[in-house]
């Protein structure tokens, strides 16, 4: 009898708590999605502002852009991403080797790509000196 009364009393409370938990979780998910989208979008916006017109057109069409190394004159392809996304390109447009170097800290892909572009276009050998090679 008492157990049944307890059940009757606690069941609605449990249901309310469960509903609140769901609402809080949904709110957290929505906030996280919005925040992540904003971060990513800001990174891409900044990258687009600093790309040359040719690089921007290439990036919009193919999600990558090419840069010319400041020291060797070699061509590199920077693909969308924040790691293992830089490739050395030969005269036929084929990837010959991959280079992995990134700015420290938790940066979004757009920021990473922009830092890689500037490094290769201004101090190519210094950037490659800290980079790790990977086969393609």
């Amino acid at each position, binding site marked *: 009898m008492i157990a049944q009364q307890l059940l009757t009393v606690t069941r609605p409370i449990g249901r309310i708590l469960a509903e609140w938990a769901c609402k809080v979780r949904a709110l957290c998910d929505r906030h996280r999605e919005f925040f992540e989208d904003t971060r990513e979008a800001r990174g891409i916006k*900044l990258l687009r502002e600093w790309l040359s017109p040719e690089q921007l057109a290439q990036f919009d069409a193919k999600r990558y852009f090419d840069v010319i190394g400041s020291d060797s004159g070699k061509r590199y392809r920077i693909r969308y991403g924040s790691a293992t996304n830089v490739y050395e390109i030969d005269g036929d447009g084929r990837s010959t080797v991959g280079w992995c170097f*990134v*700015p*420290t800290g938790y940066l979004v892909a757009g920021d990473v790509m922009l*830092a890689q572009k500037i490094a290769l276009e*201004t101090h190519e050998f210094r950037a490659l000196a800290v980079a790790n090679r990977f086969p393609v």
Partner: protein
Amino acid sequence: MFEGLEPPAVAGLGSRQLGTAPWHERCLEQFGAENPKELGMATQIVMDHTGDGRHCFDPDDPAALSKAEERFEALTSVGFTAAVRTAAGEVTVTRSFDPAAEETLFFPRLVGG
């Protein structure tokens, strides 16, 4: 410039101050401007975990200019690289503060991934 260690926190430039972009965006909206250049303002852009933080300042204001120079020194002394764009769109890396630069971009030290 790119070798080595994780840059420590910049003294007096906590993440809160680095991530000021939303405020500046609202400011620009108030004045109906697309970007700070339209208001004759210069900008220092610092890459951070929020995407970037933007510090707009009036280059004709000596106090604002001095603060911008301090920020430049603080960031580059802990390993950030400063890049500016020429009018022709060419990007160059600079080691000294340029009071005439309309836009300076700072990114953290590079390391092998």
